[in-house]
């Protein structure tokens, strides 16, 4: 195992920060695939050992309990086997020694848009966010690598008492709220990758919404990975106090690298009595990224947790957002869109654990497989005994575009007692030749016709995304569909 070489401790890599950033520095092969020059001040070296953990804790100036938490997590990570009895064998191709586990350009969070480095703004350009809308992106938390590079909380939001900071800031400045819930929804030992995240986490958001506060504007964070072989380990914790409402949006694009990159985030949501949390993700990592994410929410009495999840990028995504409905009448929902192109495997799904009476959950998943892409739905619905009035509805539809496309469905539904109702339905279909012919008759090219049909297939789910996301989504789908027919 390669440990952090001492040289990196003493000689942090600092490159000129006065970036004149000539446009020629940016290598553009494709939309979404571009790199910027690296300028990393801190680098923990390759591989992961307890030295790496100490290094990260030193740099981040972690409190002792966090350092201890990280060390414990590392041990669990190293002890846990790779889950290959049910999961794809591709997981064995992750060489944990070849990643760098911490990297930061050492920038302090910025307060205004003007201070944001040009190169990050360019990423937003490529994402196609209009100038007008960018100004409107109040409460943006944009991340450069793991650390917050830009953070501007809309005045009205902070006036309401909402805390919206990066997680390192959260654990230092609000330990009384942070510590209470941190690692409680997703315990360190939940799975191998959540343990890895717990050991090396950096970045991510911490949000606390006080009782009764309804945050009008969605809070957003864009982040991306920008260094070769560098894994990103965000840790997000969102707490909505009684009766509060918040929507959080996370979108990511990653530049293309030559070697595989690892992304393993942990996101914990806590919706207290009557609270409502919506978490929106648009994932568009480049197709060499392993995206192994653990996301789970707890919903107390009358609370609601909704995951709206869209996976377009990455080589392998394994992500099963879950909701534990702990209080009466709690509600959980997962709305998921997955698009798998050649070389990609979108292994997504949902976990719904009913733990109180009259709880309801809904899972709607639509996947599209293009070329040799493979999409998998893996679901879990658990309704234990002694509960009554629990309901679950699961629908998964898959669309196969080419004859070599692949789709799998593996739900597991376990119901105990006679006072519940569950239903699961899945269908697999194709865009019919008639449909394409009809559209081509009206002057569309075959690709346009296909793109339109695919957009139609997921249209009712896309509507669930906020406006700018649904526009972006349609654009991303068009891009993916390019060259898939003919």
């Amino acid at each position, binding site marked *: 195992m390669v440990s952090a070489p001492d040289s990196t401790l003493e000689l942090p890599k600092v490159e000129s920060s006065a970036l004149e950033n000539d446009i020629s520095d940016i290598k553009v092969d494709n939309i979404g695939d571009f790199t910027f020059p690296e300028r990393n001040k801190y680098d923990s070296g390759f591989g992961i050992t307890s030295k790496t953990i100490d290094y990260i804790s030193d740099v981040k100036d972690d409190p002792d309990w966090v350092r201890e938490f990280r060390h414990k997590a590392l041990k669990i990570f190293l002890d846990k086997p790779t889950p290959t009895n049910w999961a794809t064998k591709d997981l064995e191709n992750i060489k944990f020694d070849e990643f760098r586990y911490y990297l930061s350009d050492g920038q302090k969070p910025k307060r205004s848009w003007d201070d944001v480095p040009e190169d990050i703004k360019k990423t937003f350009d490529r994402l196609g966010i209009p100038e007008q809308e960018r100004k409107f992106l109040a409460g943006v938390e944009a991340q450069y690598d793991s650390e917050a590079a830009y953070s501007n909380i809309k005045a009205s939001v902070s006036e309401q008492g909402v805390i919206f900071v990066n997680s390192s800031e959260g654990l230092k400045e609000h330990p009384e709220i942070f510590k209470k819930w941190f690692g409680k929804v997703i315990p360190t030992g939940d799975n191998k990758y959540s343990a890895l995240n717990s050991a090396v986490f950096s970045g991510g958001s911490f949000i606390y919404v006080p009782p009764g506060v309804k945050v009008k504007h969605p809070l957003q964070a864009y982040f991306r990975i920008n260094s070769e072989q560098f894994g990103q380990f965000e840790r997000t914790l969102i707490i909505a106090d009684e009766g509060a409402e918040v929507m959080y949006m996370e979108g990511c694009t990653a530049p293309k690298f030559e070697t595989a990159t690892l992304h393993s985030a942990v996101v914990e949501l806590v919706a207290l009595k009557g609270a409502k949390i919506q978490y929106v993700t648009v994932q568009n990592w480049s197709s060499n990224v392993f995206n192994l994410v653990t996301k789970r929410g707890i919903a107390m009495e009358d609370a609601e947790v909704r995951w709206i999840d869209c996976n377009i990028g990455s080589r392998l995504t394994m992500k099963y957002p879950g909701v534990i409905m702990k209080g009466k009448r709690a509600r959980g929902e997962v709305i998921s869109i997955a698009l798998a192109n050649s070389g990609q495997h979108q292994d997504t799904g949902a976990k719904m654990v009913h733990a109180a009476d009259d709880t309801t959950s809904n899972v709607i998943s639509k996947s599209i497989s293009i070329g040799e892409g493979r999409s998998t739905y893996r679901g879990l619905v658990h309704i234990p005994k002694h509960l009554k009035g629990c309901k679950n509805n699961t629908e998964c539809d898959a669309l196969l575009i080419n*004859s070599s496309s692949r789709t799998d469905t593996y739900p597991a539904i376990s119901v105990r007692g006679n006072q519940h109702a569950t239903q699961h339905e899945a269908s697999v279909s194709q865009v019919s030749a008639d449909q394409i012919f009809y559209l081509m008759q009206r002057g569309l090219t075959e690709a346009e016709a296909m793109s339109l049909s695919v957009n139609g297939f997921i249209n009712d789910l896309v509507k669930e995304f906020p406006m700018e996301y649904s526009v972006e989504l349609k654009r991303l789908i068009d891009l993916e569909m390019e060259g898939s027919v003919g």
Partner: protein
Amino acid sequence: MLPTALSASTMPSAPTDTSTGLLAITPTLNTNAPDWFATRSSAAWADFQSLPIPSLKDENWRYSNAKKIELAEHSPAKAPTPAEIQAALSATEGLKERAARFVFVNDTLVESDTSGLPSGVVCVTFEEALKAHVDVLQQHFMKGEQALGSSKFAALHLAHVKAGTVIIVPKNVVIEKPVEIFHWVVGDHAAIFPHTLVVTGDNSEVSVVDHYRSLEGEGGLSIAIADLIGGSGSKVTYAACQELADDAQALHLSSITAGRDASVKSFQVQLGASFSRSESVSDLVGQGARSDMLSVSLPIGDQIVDQRTLQRHKAPHATSDLLYKNALYGTSRSIFSGLIIFDEGAHYTEAYQTCRNLLNSNEAEATSLPGLEINADQVKCSHGATSGPISDEELFYLKARGISDSESRKLIIEGFLAGVVERFGNSELLDTLVARIDEKLERAV
């Protein structure tokens, strides 16, 4: 040739637990058996001993437990006494309209009647077939690998098998009435290993019913295997009715091969045993083939019904349709795990899979794992799984007509299960099974 069942890929890895108790006594080989069979038998015995008991981590045993089949408790059933034979025969009611009937007690043939069969049909015991129909056995006997997790138990079956029926239907012969086979188990902790092999020629028709019953004695065990090979354009209907004693354990492994334009309908009725597991594999190998996989179960008390199915589409233009219904009472559990796989090239295919669970008590538990793996073009495929209680509307409708609550529930469950039994298409069998379901419902309420 060695059975592919025992290839390394199907072997679950550590932890290794090969304890087999009394069944560890090497079975006495049939001295009349041909060499090839003796070779396979002893190879299977070696495999049985070396293969581990499937662990809880094995995906094919998820939510279940292979240790529910208590190998250590059982020993191969002893030859029946005349009194036991008499008791079994008088308890064998069976169908009036039948083409043939075989009655086995503890893997020993005690009655056979093949008078209703058209000429040319081979319908003999397994022992007889080993002498006279070696070519068919060599070609079809236990050829499919155990894809659903019971390689160890299949090896045990092969090592011990001596009883059962081999039915070979020649081209264009239609057997209108069913062939009925009874397997009785008697004696404490007795284990039986019944085998059924059905091979049909082009455009022929046959229906076969296997009954698994207990006479007396504690905790019997039946490890049964049925191989059904449907030739081009043939129609095969098969039912396995398991009504063993409440403390018995049952394992039924069936493998179906449907050739070009063949239609194979298989049917599982699970009414008895404390732990009852069925593994049903349908291979659609010919164009235009069709496979219907049906099942009803009515677990009560603390019974466990464990169902694993696999619909494998290997040819284009084929159809498979699965419908499994479970009505649960008491603290019983049901586990349904189904998978549909499309091989590359299995285009223009339709595959359906439905599992419905009716939960009638607050402690009953139904788990459904309906899976799909699709790798083909122009495919129509869907699956559905529901679990819930009897709907209030249905109950209200009946109660509004003056029918009591308990009677209404009984009627609804009877209708729920009978809907599947009807698809078997034999009214006498339907009546018999509905009566058995009724009897069990009385016990459940």
